[in-house]
């Protein structure tokens, strides 16, 4: 029984006098812990790479990705050539209130247009604001970390 008393007393003195090592709580919001680079915080979109193939929307278990697009014709490279048809993205919304943060959409995209970013502070006061449209998703791209080095 005295061992238990000693443990609590010594913890108390260690936390008061040596806080760097022993104080475990972080003074949020003044100090923040940085998550690891692979942490699944929010999904970023690279609109240039997206070809509106709809694979992510189909594979999402919650059906929280809303995509609309249309086909545009581009002028042929030389006169008389083939008219190229390109898909343009009109709407790409992810509803983060429904999102499970599972990552299937990121994994399944054949054109590497979606990326994970460890940002986690995007809480809103209205639930409708949790629907991020394509410009906001493009904005998250800046926070995507580079590929981390791998273990040998």
């Amino acid at each position, binding site marked *: 029984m005295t061992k238990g008393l000693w443990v*609590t007393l010594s913890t108390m003195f260690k936390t008061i006098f040596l806080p760097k090592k022993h*104080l475990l709580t972080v003074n949020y919001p003044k100090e923040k812990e940085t998550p690891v680079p692979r942490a699944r915080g929010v999904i970023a979109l690279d609109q240039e790479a997206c070809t509106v193939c709809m694979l992510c929307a189909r594979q999402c278990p919650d059906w929280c990705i809303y995509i609309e697009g249309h086909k545009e014709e581009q002028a042929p490279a030389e006169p008389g050539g083939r008219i190229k048809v390109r898909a343009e993205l009109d709407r790409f919304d992810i509803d983060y209130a429904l999102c499970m943060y599972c990552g299937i959409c990121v994994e399944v995209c054949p054109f590497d247009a979606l990326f994970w970013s460890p940002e986690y502070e995007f809480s809103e006061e209205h639930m409708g604001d949790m629907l991020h449209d394509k410009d906001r998703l493009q904005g998250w791209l800046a926070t995507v970390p580079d590929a981390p080095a791998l273990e040998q």
Partner: protein
Amino acid sequence: MPDFVVNLFDNFWVALGGKLALVALMIPMIGMAIGFAEMKLSAKMQHRMGPYFAGGRWGWAQLIADGVKFFQKEDLIPEEADRPVFKIAPIFVLMGTVALFVVIPFGPGLIFRDLSVGVFYALAISSISTIGILMAGWSSANKYSLMGGLRAAGQLIAYELPLVLAVVGSIILAGTMSMSGIVEAQIDAGYPYVIFQVVGFAVFMIASLAELSRIPFDMPIAESELVMGYLTEYTGFRFLFFFLAEFANMFTLSAIAVTLFLGGYWLPGIPADTLEFAGPVILLGKVFILVFAMIWFRWTFPRFREDQLQTLAWKWLIPIALANIMITATLKVFL
């Protein structure tokens, strides 16, 4: 002091009003200070920080904020509850604590009312809190509160006896039951009574932990089983009474222990004329040490089961306290 103030306070009613105001001021202050100390110390024992946001870096305003929060909560009374009993119960509990405050000697002559049966009065009045707890448990039409109230009744009554028997040794050594009389007897003898009454002191501390319903004896509250026991249905202002009463009671029972066993407001080596000013400081220092021990025990130990608690009281503490009385009385007569 200017003459007219002294003459004013000679009037019985003015003095009474002044004393009441002082008591009413001190109890919440002490309650909040001890509550804050508990939050900070328990946090440090668990690698945490404790309150730090309210009131700047140290978080000293945390309990004031808590008090304001409790004040502005809705006053809910369950429909099936017994309304008059429900409302009076917190008052009984706080009354026991406030009444105890009256006989604590803060310095030579600095006592609210020096009763010649001070110890007897203190121990008797502290039992009123028991009735308050029972009333709280029974009147909140809630089976959990009922169980908490019954457990509290059993526990508090069982631990009244060791509490009372433990102090008899000190009374025998001092020869008087008045609280300031016991402190003066320790000053005359030159040593605090704890040196001879170690057993009595230990029994008193254990019994006072049980009277306060603190872990390891907090079966009546038993947060993880009965969701606050007899306190379950109390919200807002009424809960604040119980909350304050617990912390203020920690102070008063520790102060009684300090007075009876540790020498009260006196330290060996301090000249008698400075005791008027240094006395309260010394008393607060000693009380703080005891309160720290109570906080330390609370966060280290788990709780006893009800029957183990009762076994401890009836089979161990009461015989030890009785033996203590017999040995002290015998030695006092023959030495």
